[in-house]
């Protein structure tokens, strides 16, 4: 069965067609939900909600965009609505500046002295830091750098412009770098503390 056939049959209520579409797209949707909310229980709820919405509205799908784009748009909306209910304040997708934590002025992300990350970061650190990103940044980063969507697709999914998608991605990457640097510094501090404690014990 092709995806187009499955969509047509699902629009007529065919059970096997629904399952085909679920199996075809479910793994990507689950990965997106899990990375967005960080825990399997919430991810399962959101995935179920997204697919139920999709299948209930499948009769309205006209093929103007790719089916996967339509599905991901629904998934992102479901996830962001849930996150907006749970957390505050949330960085909106339209936010263009992020205040510097010390001065309150615009953050200077480039040209400032910092800690080099190369070799100090692994996938676990990265996954943990992705969870700490504001939802808007997290969505764009996961869609682009993890799931491989292009900016025109992300713009379609998120209902924004291509320029906005690019801008948010850059901010997300910059913010991730900051989060990872904090984590590396924290690890180094812990290691120094442990070394001091051990020296104290043996000295």
């Amino acid at each position, binding site marked *: 069965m092709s995806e187009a056939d499955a969509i047509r049959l699902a629009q*007529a*209520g*065919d*059970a096997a067609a*629904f*399952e085909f579409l*679920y199996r075809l797209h*479910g*793994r*990507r*949707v*689950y*990965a997106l939900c*899990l*990375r967005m909310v960080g*825990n*399997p*229980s919430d991810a*399962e*709820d959101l*995935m*179920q*909600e997204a*697919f*139920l919405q999709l*299948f*209930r509205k499948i009769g309205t799908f006209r093929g103007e965009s790719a089916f996967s784009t339509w599905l991901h748009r629904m998934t992102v909306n479901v996830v962001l609505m849930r996150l907006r209910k749970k957390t505050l304040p949330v960085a909106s997708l339209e936010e263009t500046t992020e205040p510097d934590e010390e001065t309150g002025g615009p953050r200077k*992300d*480039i*040209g*400032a*002295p*910092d800690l*080099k*990350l*190369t070799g100090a*970061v*692994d*996938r676990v650190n*990265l*996954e943990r830091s992705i969870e700490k990103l504001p939802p808007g940044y997290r969505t764009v*980063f996961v869609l682009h*750098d*993890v*799931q*491989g969507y292009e900016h025109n697709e992300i713009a379609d999914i998120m209902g924004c412009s291509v*320029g906005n998608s*690019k*801008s948010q*991605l*850059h901010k997300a*990457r*910059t913010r*991730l*770098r900051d989060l*990872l640097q904090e984590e590396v510094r924290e690890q180094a501090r812990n290691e120094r503390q442990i070394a001091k404690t051990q020296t104290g014990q043996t000295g």
Partner: protein
Amino acid sequence: MQCRELEVFFEEEGLAPLSAAARQHLSECHACKHFFEDVTGIVALAHQLPAELDPPEHIWISIRNELVREGTIRGLSGDRVPWWQSFAELFRNRSLATAAVAMVMIMVAFLLGSQPRDQMRQGQQAQEDPYASTVTALRQQEHDLANMQLASTGENSAVDASLRQNLEQVNEFIADCERRVREEPSDELAREYLTNAYQQKAQLLSAMMDRGGSLN
């Protein structure tokens, strides 16, 4: 090119390909060079994260049951899929598991047949009710789950509600199959459905216990 201009370049064009001006600046500015190397490394690591992950099977079961209930899913005739048929389709892909269970039951019957006379009465009882220990184990698991849910402080979610509904349906199905097996002990199809229903119930209970444990 200044640092701020490089930032604008990264924002508008991404990390690659770099313009000549960007490359020139990176060769002169250590801070920007570190930034570029760090972010390039982060993106490379992100590419290694799996873009797809396997969801638990019970999600599809919950979605499907909900759509059947709503009437969104129909059979080929245009009618709603009957409740019995939906369970039959669930078991469609479990033929290997069914064959394995059948083999175990044949082996049990063989071992019971080769037992000494003084154990024949116990063996006979087991043959008459080969599901007794399964039913006892499932009952205990359901009891433990009920206790866990009573003590639970977590919120009830749509998935939890679906799982409970699935469990009710499986229990009704098991009751139907057990009645049929009592009435027609030679009905192999009913026995096969009953075996698979017990397996399905065990998996559901396990999934519900896992969720209850993670929420608490």
